């Protein structure tokens, strides 16, 4: 419904994706001198993170994203993230990509649901951006792109009313409706029940601008307070200490949107007994929106044009597995319930052979991963390439 929802959806889901990838890459990384050719090193990890972040905050892509438009379907958006995840030397199988998308969406659903005020979705977004800036703190060129997006967010959203933010939130909740995939880190932290529904606390600080429930005041014709009574509820609320900052830098106060993964905590999902209510999924398949597919082509093409291929490298060697073993990943692909299949639309980014050669040539000239001031220049080269699309 709200035409300003897509940037928030994209950036927050993207942020969650980066948290998960970072955690998995760290968990699977081997010290550089001990690594075999097909194993991840710290240098590879930083390279992947930088590549994905550069692609995500690409200027032209951001411009397109911020245009007022209706939300994409879950399927269509998934294809965009498919492209984004493959913006570097990393490869993900379908099963791992499915799991990644499940985790991303459930995490952001949780954040949207628990936001104290609808406007706090912006603080959640800023939390993600703050963390992203930390991932690329050694690469000032990309930092600029992220700050630019920050400015664009402020420009677009700071003047919206609470009612308009609530409409954005309602639009997001429609997008996430009926998703109840169980995530083990949520189950362990007791923020999700075993039936896949999130725990909604009835204690803690009330949103900024809300009073603690309990007081009734009555006034006479002159506006004087003539009676005051109190009532009790089952809740246990307190006033918040301060409001989060909406500036470029500042204490956001809100913890939603910060990185909840660490190397030691596995990221698992449970397929069995999840989403029983399939009505909305089925309906999505019945009425495809041709317009969304058009726009999807455009966005996916934008991202596809930025794809960097490792020259001559074997694809399987740089595969990231979101499961613990290859067997588990294979098994997940075979046993994924039909109703939860994203039915990924395969769109061939139209790249002529000449372009692939050009990309390989450029890749061949670049050194492996030490961040240099010149990395801004690399972005411009790719943009120039894209303009030629």
């Amino acid at each position, binding site marked *: 419904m709200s035409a300003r929802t897509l940037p928030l959806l994209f950036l927050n889901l993207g942020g969650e994706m980066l948290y998960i990838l970072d955690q998995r890459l760290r968990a699977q990384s081997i010290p550089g001198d001990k690594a075999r050719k097909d194993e991840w090193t710290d240098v590879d990890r930083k390279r992947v993170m930088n590549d994905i972040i550069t692609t995500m905050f690409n200027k032209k892509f951001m411009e397109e994203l911020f245009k007022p438009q209706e939300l994409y379907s879950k399927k269509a958006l998934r294809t965009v993230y498919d492209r984004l995840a493959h913006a570097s030397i990393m490869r993900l199988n379908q099963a791992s990509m499915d799991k990644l998308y499940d985790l991303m969406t459930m995490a952001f659903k949780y954040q949207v649901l628990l936001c104290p005020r609808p406007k706090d979705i912006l603080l959640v977004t800023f939390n993600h951006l703050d963390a992203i800036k930390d991932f690329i703190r050694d690469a000032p060129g990309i930092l600029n792109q992220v700050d630019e997006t920050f400015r664009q967010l402020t420009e677009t959203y700071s003047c919206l009313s609470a009612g308009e933010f609530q409409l954005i939130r309602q639009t997001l909740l429609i997008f996430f409706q009926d998703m109840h995939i169980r995530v083990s880190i949520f189950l362990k932290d007791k923020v999700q029940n075993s039936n896949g529904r999130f725990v*909604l606390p009835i204690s803690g600080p009330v949103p900024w601008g809300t009073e*603690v429930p309990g007081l009734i005041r009555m006034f006479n014709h002159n506006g004087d307070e003539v009676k005051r009574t109190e009532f009790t509820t089952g809740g246990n609320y307190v006033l918040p200490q301060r409001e989060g900052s909406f500036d470029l830098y500042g204490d956001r106060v809100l913890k939603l949107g910060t990185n909840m993964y660490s190397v030691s905590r596995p990221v698992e999902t449970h397929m069995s007994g999840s989403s029983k209510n399939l009505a909305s999924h089925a309906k999505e398949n019945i009425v495809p*929106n041709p317009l969304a597919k058009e726009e999807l082509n455009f966005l996916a093409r934008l991202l596809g044009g930025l794809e960097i291929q490792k020259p001559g490298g074997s694809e399987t060697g740089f595969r990231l597995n979101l499961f613990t073993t290859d067997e588990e990943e294979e098994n997940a692909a075979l046993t994924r319930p039909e109703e939860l299949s994203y039915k990924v639309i395969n769109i061939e980014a139209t790249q002529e052979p000449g372009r692939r050669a050009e990309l390989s040539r450029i890749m061949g000239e670049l050194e492996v991963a030490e961040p240099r001031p010149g990395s801004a220049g690399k972005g411009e080269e790719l943009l120039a390439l894209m303009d030629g699309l």
Partner: protein
Amino acid sequence: MAAATSGMYRKEKSIQLKSSSAALYNNLSVLPLPGRQLTCFSTVHGPSLSMVTADGLGFSHRQLQAKEGGMTVSTSLLTQAAWCVLPSRVLLVLTSQKGIQMYESDGSIMVYWHALDVTEHPPAQAVFARGIAAAGGRFICVGTSSGLVLVFDIPPKGTNIMVSEVLERHCDAITDIAAELGQAPDGAGDLVTADDAGTLCVWSTGEEFALLSKIPAFGCTCSSVKLWNGIVAAGYGNGQIRLYEATTGLLRAEVNAHARWIYALDLAPQTGKLLSGAEDSFVHVWKLSRNLDTDDVEVEHCHGECVTDTQVCGARFCDPEGNSFAVTGYDLSEIFRYGRT
């Protein structure tokens, strides 16, 4: 988790829905049909309406895919559905991103379709209709996202429905509309409209509607509103319920009712019971009354119910005395029911 109740109501058998309820304001409508010993319930999700009829023995379900112009299947989202009870007929009104549809009360036949004029909205703004109420024994009023209130003149039967007036006193998207449910004091209006900014307008209905008073916003959205015996009850985004004098717009009571955004209010006209539901998982029942000596408005808390892990998006009394009520929430494929003990 223990439910917080004061023992006045207890939970009864739930009604299962075929699809879950969307997180939209006032997303539950109830049509009691005591003569036929039936009660009908409806909530919206996506482009469809979930309707359930309960007759004490069992339930029958109906899914209504909102059609536009009777031809193509809609890809437009519904924002609200409500039964409008007029002296001669009951219509089921659906509002969506495309416009307004009116059906016979069982959803079987569409009697009227009104498309929203997209051009009267600025390009980046959302377009939708929202806020539905029967008024003046003759009209159905529906709000739009540009702040307009469309007044439809409804004939006793047939499809000859026309827009009789367009009210242009709101600058923000309409959230809710309510007609006087009791007896309006002399000179008091019989219709109240509310918007996203929190502004309330009180009107008198008729051949020509007249604006009687405007209650200014105080910085919070008013998502739900009710009018009873000249008292406006308004639910806000900061969790407050405020009661105003409809004639003067004067604030008479302020209740710090909920810890989150209020999504639904309902009123039982025979007793003055007020029901509120919010994102904080709570549903509360209040009692409104007038002190006959001082003419002051009084409100007391009667009952609180925690709908565990649910953001309530719809709450309605199922009878005019408020002896029973129904509640639904976001992502919930159920309607919870409660009755007096």
